[in-house]
């Protein structure tokens, strides 16, 4: 009897304890936390694995390059020179370092130096602004252009220029592709009229777009000494990236659920009402899918276009570092690569969030 009582008591105690636990952490939430922790763990592990592989790879390449250098010295200048070369490499002297894939630590150091460089330039700019504030005020009062800072751009400025270019290009793509997409989506005859145009121009490479825009803008800017690199690059980016939005918008508009169209017909909605109350809202998810692709394409082609247009962005940065061939150039290129990748990822997330906000049917979105 007594034992039973105790058992019962224990049971009810453990039951109430369980209930309390469940109350504190609802099972769904608990599972969610465990799952996300597990996911985070796996991601972290794969990052570490990636860095490890990278480290080993760059080390192997480094050794190969070093051996080659020593061997070359041996053949060309004899044993003494070879030993000196070996000693020089091992001492870490920057004059004789093998030039190859940088290791993770080198890249990290470059990132820090780029950030430090930004601080220096920022301070420099502030000093410049302070020094010239009185002069500039006078110049503005006289109706003349103020003197602006024309020193070297820091890495952060470069990244900001790239982001600015991409957004300007994206906006241009949106302003061109969405209205045209809607118009050709509404009319089957216009759609076939435009089809060849889209099919021919869609696969054209960013480089060619750049050249085309260059030809036009150059002429338009005749007699204007101002810098047109930014204009050329954002227009090229926009033209390159707009096709996904154009095609998706046209498709979204032309493939509105037949039921909605029937409702519009039965209610005898006017064209304006039909377009703005039925067709556009129902094709918004597809339009945003297109815009999301457009933004990621814009970011991808940006690097090549900035390089060609000599616009002070990441593309030019990467190219100049490559041409420059300084000791830390390679690791700066890798830094830029990661920055490009991470910003691209963040932009995509941003668009995904917006896309989810406008999608009216959450189940249909995977």
């Amino acid at each position, binding site marked *: 009897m007594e034992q039973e009582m105790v058992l019962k008591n224990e049971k009810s105690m453990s039951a109430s304890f369980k209930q309390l636990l469940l109350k504190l952490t609802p099972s769904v939430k608990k599972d969610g936390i465990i799952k996300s922790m597990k996911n985070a763990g796996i991601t972290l592990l794969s990052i570490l694995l990636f860095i490890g592989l990278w480290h080993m790879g760059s080390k192997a390449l480094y050794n190969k390059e070093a051996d080659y250098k020593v061997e070359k010295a041996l053949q060309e200048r004899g044993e003494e020179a070879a030993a000196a070369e070996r000693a020089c490499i091992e001492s870490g002297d920057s004059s004789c370092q093998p030039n190859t894939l940088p290791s993770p630590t080198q890249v990290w150091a470059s990132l820090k130096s780029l950030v430090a460089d930004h601080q220096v330039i920022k301070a420099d700019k502030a000093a410049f602004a302070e020094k010239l504030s009185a002069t500039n005020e006078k110049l503005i009062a006289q109706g003349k252009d103020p003197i602006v800072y024309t020193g070297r751009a820091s890495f952060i400025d470069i990244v900001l220029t790239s982001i600015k270019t991409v957004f300007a290009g994206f906006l241009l793509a949106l302003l061109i592709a969405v209205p045209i997409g809607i118009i050709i989506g509404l009319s089957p005859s216009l759609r076939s009229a435009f089809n060849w145009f889209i099919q021919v121009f869609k696969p054209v490479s960013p480089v060619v777009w750049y050249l085309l825009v260059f030809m036009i803008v150059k002429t338009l800017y005749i007699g204007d000494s101002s810098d047109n690199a930014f204009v050329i690059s954002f227009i090229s980016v926009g033209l390159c990236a707009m096709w996904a939005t154009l095609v998706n918008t046209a498709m979204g508009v032309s493939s509105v659920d037949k*039921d909605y169209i029937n409702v519009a*017909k039965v209610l005898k909605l006017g064209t304006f009402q039909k377009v703005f109350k039925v067709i556009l809202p129902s094709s918004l998810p597809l339009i945003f899918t297109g815009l999301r692709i457009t933004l990621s394409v814009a970011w991808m082609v940006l690097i090549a276009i900035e390089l060609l247009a000599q616009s002070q962005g990441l593309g030019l940065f990467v190219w100049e570092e490559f041409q420059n061939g300084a000791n830390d150039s390679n690791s700066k290129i890798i830094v830029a690569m990661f920055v490009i990748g991470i910003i691209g990822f963040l932009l995509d997330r941003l668009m995904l969030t917006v896309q989810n906000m406008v999608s009216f049917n959450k189940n249909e979105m995977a």
Partner: protein
Amino acid sequence: MNTIEQSNEVYSENGIVYPSKVMLDLADLKKVYPTPKGDYVVLEDLNLQILKEEFVTIIGHSGCGKTTMLSMIAGLNPISGGNISVLGNPVKGPGPDRGVIFQSPSLMPWMTALQNVLLGVNQVFPQATKGQREDIAKYYLHKVGLENAFHKKASELSQGMQQRVGIARAFAIKPKVLLLDEPFGMLDSLTRGELQDILIEIWNKEKITAVMITHDVDEAIFLADRVIMMTSGPRAKIGDILSIDFERPRTRKSVLESDDYYTYRKHLIDFLEH
């Protein structure tokens, strides 16, 4: 055969038809779909007159052309031959004088329940003030039991609730004819029963001439003044007409308890099984 003569008496006496009583007139209606192998005739020689304030259900095998006929009345599907007229005016396209409740609720999922109903009301009553139009929409949403869901997005409503909005939207535009294309086909039987009650309750008040397609024999009997049986396609036409003489307003209980109910039911099932 007997029942056809009986039902004919509803709108004709001694062979004279009283057109003033007729709301919807289908005469020698024909629908042909061209196919690579030649024309496919869905409907042929279809004649049907539906009276004012009449509720008619149409029953027949899948693919016999019921939906084709209904969408032709709605003006959403062109007529290949014959005539459809509403109060003597030939149908030339879709319009709000023929409200449709579709099989799927067909609500704009990005709009709220109220906005969905207002979409039609704004169109039909442009001269009314905004407040008046909103009152109309709210009145019908109230009637279908959605007084607490005015501002819910259509995509957040269950199938049954969406179809309630569909009913409210159709009645709110005050059509002359209400066309219902298996509106409850996608619902579970409990929800279907609830919606039948709601539909008939509003209908009893408004008495809008209604043509409803259904697969459900019990639904056909419970709602209708006449059940139209269509022959199987191709070349489908009216096979038989059965008058349902229960008094209105009806309750499900009284209908089920009546002996006639089982006679009607047997008649319909016999037709469908042959």
